[in-house]
């Protein structure tokens, strides 16, 4: 069983597993949406004292913070127990494109040329990591949800606003990848 789980999962198994998480949270009386935690963390840091948007009872989101803590631990367990011996099966064309941009493929989950402290504190690194994160945080709250809340929960519930948001996610992603990326990297 562990050997089976260790292999990279095919897309249909992965998609089914994500639906399972969404249904599980519905069964627990909650709604799958991860980015709400970012707002709750701001509230916990004291942002509610000065700004109305953060002034809410964070205990209503306690379940989601626990889910978040579980997610960190799940990441740890995957690395400790379920790591595959194979390299990531990335498309050869993507490997070639990224090589041209100076991001070599190292076979891991994320490029070590980007996710290291030396790069992180370089100007390019701060734009990529801090700047990227900033847009993710601002955008997900502005749109009222991220990939889990809109693309998975919202589209599954046939919500038109979620379709607008997902169109926005993709338009932004394509713009970054094809227009801004070559300027940054």
């Amino acid at each position, binding site marked *: 069983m562990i050997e089976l789980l260790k292999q990279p999962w095919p897309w249909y198994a992965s998609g089914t597993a994500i639906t399972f998480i969404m249904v599980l949270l519905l069964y627990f009386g909650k709604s799958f949406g991860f980015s709400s935690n970012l707002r709750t963390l701001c509230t916990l840091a004291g942002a509610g004292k000065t*700004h109305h948007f953060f002034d809410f009872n964070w205990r209503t989101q306690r379940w989601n913070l626990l889910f978040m803590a579980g*997610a960190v631990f799940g990441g740890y*367990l995957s*690395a400790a127990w379920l790591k595959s011996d194979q390299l990531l099966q990335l498309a050869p064309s993507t490997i070639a494109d990224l090589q041209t941009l100076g991001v070599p493929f190292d076979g891991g989950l994320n490029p070590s040329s980007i996710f290291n402290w030396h790069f992180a504190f370089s100007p390019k690194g701060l734009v990529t990591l801090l700047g990227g*994160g900033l847009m993710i*945080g601002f955008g997900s709250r502005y*749109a009222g949800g991220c990939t889990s809340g809109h693309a998975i929960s919202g589209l599954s519930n046939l919500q038109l606003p979620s379709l607008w948001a997902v169109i926005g996610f993709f338009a932004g992603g394509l713009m970054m990848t094809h227009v801004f*990326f070559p300027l940054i990297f």
Partner: protein
Amino acid sequence: MKGVKFVIAGILFGVIMVKSEAASWYRIQEMFRFQSFHMYGIIGTAVGLGAIAIFLIKKLEINDFYGHPIVFPHKEKSWPKYILGGLIFGLGWALAGACPGPMFVNLGYGYPTMIIVILGALLGTYLYGITKNKLPH
């Protein structure tokens, strides 16, 4: 101990994000370059099955764990906030290569520099909170 089930759900979510490779910076790039079906297959399967599941929950009036009817939050009817917010999110998603869940999953997996992406995301959320009233919704 009511919270334990959410920790367990979170652990499962973390494992799924890693093993599906949805938490991979490389896979996000591959998706936005249309060079593999992988991510589209994952999202497509999740939404397709999710739609069937939600349809059945509504049709069969299934109750939750506590015996309460399962309610679905309706998204506010509007479009500027979804399109503009979505666009900004997408720019960040392709750049940092992680959406909010996978940022935290990767931190546990062994990418400590993800903390910078998380700090950026908290700062972005804070900036939205203080500029909210000036933005078109």
